[in-house]
């Protein structure tokens, strides 16, 4: 149970930092709303609702990317990550705590973004909501690990989109499928499979990303 206590403490730390400094969440909210407005002008006036539903996934992915690119910034700048790694605890708890915090940010951003999408474009169905929930888990699991990788490199924020987008193409395929298909079950099952596989790989490999 101490493992989950560690995870909880780390996630709470990130949420508390966000509550005090308000760095990430307002940026994500403003970004996702701006993106939706841009999409309105991107789409020709007679284009179908399906195109808008596809673009929703672009907005979600890039909003997540915005939050992820700063995910480990505080840890690196203040040297917190070294302290956390030196603690004689399971290091994957660092990953899980961070992923949960990012999941909370992304979820909050979507609580605003999905109704806004419904208002600006077309109504959001149950398949889309279920798809977004499942996709968020995968995005945060993979994204947090890759963000830790990117902060270790010289290129930092520049690198993250390059390594993140190819890995999330399956999420986009599953998510868009869940949004536009008549029977989203197949796509939702696929998203759950993605979450399971990449969640396990990320959980198992985080240790090697932060240690030498």
């Amino acid at each position, binding site marked *: 149970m101490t493992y989950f206590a560690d995870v909880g403490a780390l996630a709470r730390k990130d949420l508390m930092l966000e509550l005090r400094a308000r760095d990430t969440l307002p940026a994500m909210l403003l970004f996702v709303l701006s993106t939706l407005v841009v999409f309105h002008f991107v789409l020709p006036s007679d284009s179908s609702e399906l195109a808008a539903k596809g673009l929703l996934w672009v907005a979600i992915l890039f909003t997540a990317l915005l939050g992820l690119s700063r995910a480990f910034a505080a840890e690196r700048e203040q040297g917190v990550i070294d302290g956390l790694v030196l603690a004689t605890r399971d290091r994957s708890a660092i990953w899980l705590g961070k992923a949960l915090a990012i999941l909370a940010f992304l979820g909050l951003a979507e609580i605003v973004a999905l109704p806004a999408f419904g208002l600006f474009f077309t109504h959001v169905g149950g398949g889309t909501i279920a798809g977004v929930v499942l996709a968020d888990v995968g995005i945060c699991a993979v994204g947090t*690990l890759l963000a830790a*990788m990117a902060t*270790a*490199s*010289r*290129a930092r924020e520049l*690198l993250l989109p*390059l*390594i993140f*987008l*190819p*890995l999330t*193409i*399956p999420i986009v*395929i*599953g998510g*868009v*499928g869940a949004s536009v298909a008549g029977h989203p079950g*197949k*796509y939702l099952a*696929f998203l759950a*499979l*993605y979450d399971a*596989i*990449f969640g396990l*790989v990320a959980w198992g*490999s985080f240790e*090697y*990303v932060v*240690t*030498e």
Partner: protein
Amino acid sequence: MLPANRLPALATLALGLMVAAVALVAYVAPVDANQGLSQKIFYFHVPVALTAYALFGWGAWRGLRHLWKREQGADLESYVAIHLGVIFGAMTLLTGSIWAKISWGRWWAWSSDQLVLFLVLFLFYSAYFMLRFSIEPGPQRANLSAVYAVFGVALIPVSFLAIRISKDIIHPVVFKSTGPDMSGTMFLAFCVSWAAMLALAATLYHVELAGKRLDARLKELREALTS
């Protein structure tokens, strides 16, 4: 690792198989009834693609051995395998694109699962180089490269599944669960061609590895002399 004196033998084997494959494809394998002569590119396109998978798989395996057993040199081997895998992947995209132009009339077909998959993999493994070369050489770079390589082999089946469930299929499916849909000589030409590609990849792999090791050794010697 391969002893240095075996390398010429391996290279000769690759060359011999290559010549045999070209001869079989050109003279023995029958001309396809539907697609005509253009179908012959199949004997290069598919073996190149399968060899690229093999190289990505080998790169991930060496990466895993690095993380797991801390094997000496596994990091370099993983890098060389992925480097060659990207080259073979680019060749797959190129030959696939030529084939698509001839049989479907356009250079790129999003409805072709395998081509899309290779594009995703090509992007993913190209980012591998961005990652690897923006980290200082050392244990951390080896670890991150290895973790990324392991992600790659998880991505291959997942992407394949994703693309398969989302697309209508116009890509010719030659290998079915009931066995390959080819005549005997076609299958023979295909197998020889595949063996030739694998031998070529193995030769290139050992050549590049030997070069990289020589580089490292030279650097060590130079540092020993100048300090």
